[in-house]
């Protein structure tokens, strides 16, 4: 059993204060370590999630972060899996403990996705997130590929622009109660539907922003946990990872995230629970429609569109999705997003999240998930409340 004894996020936003990714990493790590009750000397491995050296201009970022965090001597590893990098880093940390090679692992996710490069450079770089030799030769942007996938999904399910607006408004509204969120907003549908068209049907406000920031977890084997954390710390119950064909058109159903479905089933089976046991989830909402496509793939409800329209995924609904605001509201420093999702779930399960977003009733299980490409490399993590929760 692996416990989450420490969890922290910096604010996700566009930094204008001259601070760097190394500063944010230290801030997130220090706060997570303080929560854990451990010191730097107790950590025997550092796993760093960072999507691209083009953001940090630092190959082997784990080497410099180990020094900054006081972890020289610890094993270091950098994990990259596109937008799923953070979730894969969490998995790497958990697996290191389950293998017996480490007792206490720090996972740090970070990227200066907003402030390091201009928008044209960012757009070009993200184009390389997909198969350069196939979809990439069309020049299609990330938004265009997601738009085509959403259209394929909507053609089968009946999803509409109203549904995109519902998700957009929900996530940005949740973000209003998250003091670390990049885009806390109270959008009207008219405002959403009047924002500039990027790739139909996606408009500017249907897209997640690029952000700066970091998140950190302190993972620990049960036998090595500090006594004060052993019985209350949330635990990692299930992991699932898998992949799909990278080319959108190569998939038999381009609107459906097949790999994510398979991965969720693996994670839930490892946890020994079913999708209906999940009390809340942090879902990869790079675009509004991608959230609904993810919910469908995860099998959280029988009819995702009906559930969305009935408010099931709202902050007061039966299964809140992206209480943090998600990528759309909280923001997306790419390497940090997956780590931040897991940290958010851990804090919620322990009852330590932002007060206006913390559900009143005790929580049993939460799910965090993200992906690289267009749900090409997928990772799902299932967390459970601590033994005495």
């Amino acid at each position, binding site marked *: 059993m692996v416990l989450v004894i420490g969890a922290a996020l910096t604010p996700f936003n566009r930094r204008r204060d001259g601070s760097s990714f190394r500063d944010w990493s230290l801030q997130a790590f220090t706060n997570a370590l303080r929560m854990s009750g451990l010191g730097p000397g107790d950590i025997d491995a550092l796993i760093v999630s960072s999507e691209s050296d083009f953001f940090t201009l630092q190959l082997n970022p784990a080497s410099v972060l180990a020094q900054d965090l006081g972890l020289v001597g610890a094993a270091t590893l950098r994990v990259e899996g596109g937008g799923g990098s953070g979730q894969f880093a969490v998995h790497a940390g958990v697996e290191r403990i389950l293998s017996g090679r480490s007792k206490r692992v720090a996972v740090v996710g970070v990227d200066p996705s907003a402030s390091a490069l201009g928008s044209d450079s960012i757009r070009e770089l993200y184009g390389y997130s997909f198969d350069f030799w196939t979809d990439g030769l069309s020049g299609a*942007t990330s938004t265009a590929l997601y738009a085509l996938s959403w259209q394929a999904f909507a053609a089968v399910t009946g999803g509409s622009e109203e549904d995109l607006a519902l998700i957009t408004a929900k996530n940005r509204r949740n973000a209003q109660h998250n003091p670390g969120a990049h885009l806390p907003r109270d959008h009207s549908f008219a405002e959403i539907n009047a924002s500039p068209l990027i*790739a*139909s049907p996606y408009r500017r406000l249907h897209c997640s922003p690029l952000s700066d920031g970091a998140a950190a977890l302190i993972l620990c084997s049960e036998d090595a946990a500090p006594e004060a954390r052993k019985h209350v710390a949330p635990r990692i119950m299930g992991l699932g990872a898998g992949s799909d064909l990278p080319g959108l058109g190569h998939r038999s159903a381009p609107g459906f995230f097949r790999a994510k479905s398979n991965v969720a089933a693996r994670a839930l089976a490892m946890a020994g629970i079913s999708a209906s046991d999940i009390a809340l989830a942090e879902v990869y909402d790079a675009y509004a429609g991608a959230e609904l496509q993810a919910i469908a793939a995860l099998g959280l409800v029988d009819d995702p569109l009906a559930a969305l329209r009935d408010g099931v995924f709202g902050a007061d609904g039966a299964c809140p999705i992206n209480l943090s605001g998600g990528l759309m509201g909280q923001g997306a420093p790419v390497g940090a997003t997956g780590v931040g999702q897991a940290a958010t779930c851990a804090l919620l399960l322990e009852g330590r999240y932002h007060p206006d977003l913390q559900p009143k009733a005790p929580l049993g299980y939460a799910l965090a998930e993200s992906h690289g490409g267009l749900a090409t490399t997928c990772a799902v993590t299932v967390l459970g409340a601590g033994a005495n929760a």
Partner: protein
Amino acid sequence: MKRRLTLEYELAEGWLSPWIEGLRKGQAVASHCSACHSSRFPPLRTCPNCRAQSDTWISLSGRAEVLFRTSGADGDFVLAQFEGAEGSTVLRADHLPIGAEHGRLRASIGGPPSLQLETDDTR
């Protein structure tokens, strides 16, 4: 601190050379799996149906049916189904009129190889 990074790549085409050469000429060259007789455009090295290695190349007509289309500030793109190929293909559609239901592969004249669909005058 400002820092400019300028990189110039020379990318080897490897096993995809026939596909890339076809794009330059406007010819739709698909990978073909002899084991299960499926063809893929864009090509796939391992057949997703039977996991055999695609072992030959075939030429398609180059005509495609538009399945979905997206337009906006990021450009104009389609997901289209090529005659004779399984699956579909993402292509740029700057030279395909809005509302067109069919098109054909456009040659990458004077530029790097690219995937573009244009008006099909042969229909």
